[in-house]
C-alpha cells in the first residue's frame, strides 16, 4: 500500500501555487456585454453586420459545445493526466516554466489549427466554426460539438509529455480561447505594431475568408509569429474584402445539420470508397480530396486563382 501511495504521489503533478479560476466561465459576462455592444455599434455605424438566423445558429452551436464539454471534457483531461505519467521531466509552477508553457501552448494551438484545416478528420470538427457567412462576435462562439470525439486534444499531449503540468496547459489553453473571442469583429480595422506579433481582427478576418488569396492562412491563436515563421501568413488587403464562410457553404441553420454535415460527408465517401487508399484519402486527406481530382481542395483553388491572375495580368 505504501508503494502504491508513493507511486501515486510521484505521478501527481506539482500543485499550482494559486487558485486557477474557471477562466472561460468568468469571461462569459464579458462575452455577452461585448456582443451586445457590437450589435449596437453595427446598427449605428453600419460597419460589419449581424443576422438573426445566423447568430441564433452560432449561439446554438456554442451552447451545444458547452453541453458536450460537460459530457466529454473529462476524457480529454484524463488523457492529459494519463500521458503526464510518462513525462520526460517534472516542471513546476515557476515563472520561466509558465512563460515557456505559454509559448509551447500557442505553438501547439497553431499546429492543431493548421492540421484542422489541412486534414479532413480534424476539419470535420473545425468546419463548424467557419460555417457562418458572417464575421462578428457571435461567430466566435460558433464552436464544434465533436472536438473531444474528434481527438483534437492530442495536439496538446506533447506538452504534458514534456512535463508541463496538465493544469498549466489547460490554463493557457483557456486564456488562448478567451483571447481569440474579441478578434472576431469587423469593427476594428488595423492595430499598428501590435499586428507584428499578435493575432488581431485583421489577421483573423483573413483566416475566416474564402477568397482564394486568403485561403488557409493565419492559423494563430494568440501570437501571429508562428504564421510568419512557417510561411502561412497573409495580410489583409483593403482592395479585396474578405468573403466569409466555407468553400461549400451550408444551406441550413439547423445546428444538428451544422454539427454533423462534414462527418456525414466523410461517412458517405468512405462507404463508397473502392480501396484502402481512397478510405485514407477521404478521412485523412485535405478537405475536398477525391481520388479522381474532381473536387476542389484549397491547394487547387489557390493554383487556379494564381493561374487566372497570371492570365489576366497585362503583358509586359
Amino acid at each position, binding site marked *: 500500500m505504501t508503494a502504491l501511495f508513493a507511486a501515486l504521489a510521484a505521478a501527481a503533478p506539482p500543485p499550482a501555487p494559486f487558485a486557477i479560476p474557471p477562466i472561460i466561465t468568468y469571461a462569459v459576462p464579458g462575452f455577452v456585454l461585448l456582443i451586445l455592444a457590437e450589435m449596437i455599434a453595427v446598427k449605428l455605424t453600419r460597419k460589419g*453586420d449581424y443576422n438573426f438566423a445566423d447568430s441564433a445558429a452560432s449561439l446554438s452551436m456554442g451552447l451545444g459545445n458547452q453541453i458536450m464539454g460537460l459530457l466529454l471534457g473529462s476524457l480529454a483531461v484524463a488523457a492529459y493526466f494519463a500521458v503526464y505519467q510518462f513525462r520526460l521531466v517534472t516542471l513546476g509552477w515557476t515563472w520561466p516554466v509558465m512563460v515557456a508553457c505559454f509559448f509551447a501552448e500557442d505553438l501547439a494551438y497553431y499546429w492543431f489549427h493548421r492540421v484542422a484545416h489541412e486534414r479532413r478528420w480534424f476539419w470535420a470538427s473545425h468546419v463548424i466554426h467557419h460555417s457562418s457567412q458572417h464575421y462578428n462576435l457571435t461567430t466566435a462562439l460558433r464552436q464544434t460539438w465533436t472536438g473531444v470525439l474528434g481527438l483534437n486534444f492530442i495536439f496538446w499531449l506533447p506538452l504534458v509529455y514534456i512535463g508541463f503540468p496538465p493544469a498549466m496547459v489547460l490554463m493557457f489553453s483557456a486564456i488562448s480561447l478567451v483571447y481569440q473571442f474579441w478578434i472576431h469583429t469587423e469593427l476594428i480595422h488595423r492595430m499598428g505594431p501590435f499586428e507584428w506579433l499578435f493575432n488581431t481582427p485583421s489577421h483573423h478576418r483573413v483566416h475566416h475568408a474564402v477568397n482564394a488569396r486568403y485561403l488557409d492562412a493565419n492559423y494563430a491563436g494568440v501570437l501571429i509569429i508562428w504564421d510568419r515563421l512557417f510561411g502561412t501568413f497573409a495580410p489583409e488587403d483593403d482592395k479585396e474584402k474578405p468573403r466569409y464562410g466555407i468553400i461549400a457553404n451550408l444551406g441550413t441553420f439547423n445546428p444538428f445539420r451544422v454539427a454533423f454535415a462534414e462527418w456525414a460527408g466523410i461517412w458517405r465517401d468512405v462507404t463508397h470508397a473502392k480501396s484502402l487508399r481512397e478510405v485514407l484519402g477521404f478521412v485523412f486527406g485535405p478537405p475536398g480530396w477525391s481520388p479522381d481530382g474532381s473536387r476542389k481542395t484549397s491547394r487547387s483553388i489557390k493554383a487556379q486563382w494564381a493561374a487566372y491572375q497570371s492570365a489576366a495580368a497585362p503583358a509586359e
Partner: protein
Amino acid sequence: MNQIVVLGGSAAVIALMLLIAALLGFWQTARIDAVALERLLADAEPDARIAESAIADDGRVALARLSDARVLIAKAMGDRIALRTYPSPAVTLRLRDRRLRAAFADLGFPTLNMKLSDPPRWLVDWAASGGEKP
C-alpha cells in the same frame, strides 16, 4: 445540479442576445436575381459560366446549369446567399404543379423546394428525365 444551472443561465443569456438582435432589426433577407447569381459565381469560380438558370418566385432559391454540366444551387441564408455546385448525378429533381423539389445527398444542404410559376423548358425536360442529366 450546478452545471444544469449554468447551462440554464447560458440558454437564458442566449435568448436575451437574440431578443436584442431581433429588436435591432437584424432580419434582412437576401433575394436572388440573375445578376446576383452571375456575380456570386464569378467570385467563387471565375472560369465557370451559367448556361441556364431558374429562380424561384420568392427569390430565395435558384438552380442553374453550368456550361460544364454541373448544377449550381443558390439559397438565401438570412442576408447572405449560399452557393453550391454539384455534379448533375448528385441532384434528384421532381417537378410537380409548378413546384420543383431538388434533393442532394448532403446533410449540410437540405432538400430545396422552389415555386416556379413559369418553369423553363430545360428544367421541365430535366426533371422529366428523372433528374439524371440536365
